[in-house]
């Protein structure tokens, strides 16, 4: 079986993530038949309303990975300012390389081939802890987070429990 650049790179990343899994992260292809489609679990960071939760998400890599970034989508309910109601994650590291047309982000914050799946997942983890208020993907969540923080936290906590079947 000959692998193209994207597949080789993903296999390598999968191997690194298996040998040295970062705390609170499990990630790998759903089936090795399709290395461009991964599923991962991210633990909710401690000291945040997401604490104790485990959040499944899927990563879809383009054929020209690592030149272009994957897309990441949470598969469960996540009420967060930077996650679209569909589950799609909106953070700078997932944005195509180059300068931001709106000049919000510097090129170094955006995707580049020196980034990795591990870095994406760690960024998403810290995003859960500290939402970026500047470019909300979920306006309702952003508003609640800004104005009624305790209500936001209660809602997130309840959804974490529900996601664990409790």
């Amino acid at each position, binding site marked *: 079986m000959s692998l193209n650049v994207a597949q080789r790179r993903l296999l390598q990343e999968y*191997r690194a993530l*298996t*040998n040295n*899994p970062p705390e609170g992260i*499990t990630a*790998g292809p759903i*089936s*090795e038949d399709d290395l461009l489609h991964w*599923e991962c*679990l991210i*633990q909710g960071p401690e000291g945040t309303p997401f604490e*104790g*939760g*485990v959040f*499944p998400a899927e990563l879809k890599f383009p054929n020209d990975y690592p030149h272009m970034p994957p897309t990441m989508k949470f*598969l*469960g*309910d996540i009420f967060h300012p930077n996650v679209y109601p*569909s589950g799609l994650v909106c953070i700078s590291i997932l944005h195509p390389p180059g300068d931001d047309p709106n000049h919000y982000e510097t090129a170094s914050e955006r995707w580049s081939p020196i980034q990795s799946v591990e870095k994406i997942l760690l960024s998403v983890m810290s995003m859960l802890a500290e939402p970026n208020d500047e470019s909300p993907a979920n306006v309702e969540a952003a508003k609640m987070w800004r104005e009624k923080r305790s209500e936001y936290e209660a809602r997130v906590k309840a959804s*974490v*429990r*529900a*996601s*664990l*079947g*409790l």
Partner: protein
Amino acid sequence: MAEEEINIPSLVIVLLVTGLAVRYFFFSGNASSANRQPGGTGGATPEELQRRREREREAAVETIQQMFPQVDRRTILWDLQRHGGNLQATTERILAGRTETPPITFQPPPPPSSPETTAAAQQSAAAAAASKYAEKKVHPDLITRYNLRDKLASAPSEDAGTAAAGAPKTGGWSSNREERQSLLRKRRDQMIIEARRKMEAKIAAEKTAAAAASGSAAAGDN
């Protein structure tokens, strides 16, 4: 410019043909419903008669298709039409294998689109959309999603034992593809089960705390 000059008349023709086709297909249905509303004329109008005939024909076709799913609608309609719509005779001819293939020129009427069925179809479509929406909106919890109910039911001590045994193994990369896959799955399941156990313990602790608080409050009331 030349393209537009050709396009506009042809567009008009297409619209005209579509309009005529729609009128042809739905004329009887619309006319009868329009006639029925002022209704109360007593006798059956020709449209109503035709509708009744259509209904009977459709019922016959459906009955035959239930008996002989391999025979197509067009053949059934052709046979019914040629032999005066006698259901029994058609059934016998199909059984005997004496049905004729209809000529190419035979254009069977389209399957019925009565107001009832379209309403039902719309309703079911709406229901499907609603359920799709609900599916999209309400995700199953992780235990259901990854089918962990059995594993969760197993004794926690046993689970801890397997976890401890599995811990050194899960760290490594296996050269076997299937093994890699199953190790990944195991790690994933373990992560969810651990989270669930922790949350259960937390909720239990909160409950006892709340019970103690309310108990002391109740005691204070008394």
